[in-house]
């Protein structure tokens, strides 16, 4: 994802802003990192360039 996406994405749960923590960047593209909700503290991974902003109960690793 590009950093300007931060202007429009938000926490899917409470719709508050997200903080961006970048782990890996390539040319203007953020390849991996974490998005953390400034309100509830839930964190969302950026995986291979695409942010995973599914509610936590819909993530693959969530218990069924």
């Amino acid at each position, binding site marked *: 994802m590009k950093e300007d*996406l931060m202007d*429009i994405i938000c926490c899917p749960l409470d719709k508050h802003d997200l903080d961006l923590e970048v782990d890996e960047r390539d040319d203007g593209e953020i390849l991996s990192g974490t998005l953390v909700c400034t309100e509830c503290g839930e964190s969302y991974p950026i995986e291979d360039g*695409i942010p995973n902003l*599914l*509610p936590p109960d*819909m993530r693959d690793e*969530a218990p*069924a």
Partner: protein
Amino acid sequence: MGDDRRSVKETYDRIADHFSKTREYPWPEIEGFVSDVDDVGVGLDLGCGNGRHLSVLAGVADRVVGVDASRPLLDEARERTASDPDVALVQGDAASIPLAASTVDVAVYIATLHHLPERKMRRRSLDELARVLSPGGRALVSAWSTEHDRFDATEGFDTTVDWTLPGGEVVPRFYHIYSPAEFEADLDASGLAVESVRVSSGNCYAEVTVD
């Protein structure tokens, strides 16, 4: 609740590759809707699947966001839109859209609403669409309809429609088939203002806006 929506996501995770190969072209209804839109800032494809409508939106919007629950489908969309720097992809749920309020000027929400397993969730996703649309922003919503030739019912109903993979494996997909009246009722109950509703090629379509 979460489990049901996960199961739709998992279905598309499994069939993404084959599904994508059968969804090459934009639907004419979507091209028609978008061609009436003046140039805008942000376009959204909610339930973008393999991204076949992203470049249609990119024709009228400075930047386009494609949201889908299935990561394998987003990977297909990324491949398809690799040459378009104005397209961004986000993994997300149509009933909990991860976009801030009033950020979207034009949206398409095509053949996705009918995959949400409960009426409550379907109505919530329409409210979410209303939340993210900017005042005066416009959206096209479609869902599979009882008017389609393959159905006899006149009332909306839940069903599963099998997807057969090339190797013969059959993957069931949840659908709620909408009667036109129920489609209108769900839209009317939401925060969206309905401009027009019609049935085309067995799908219900609505053009909507927010005040």
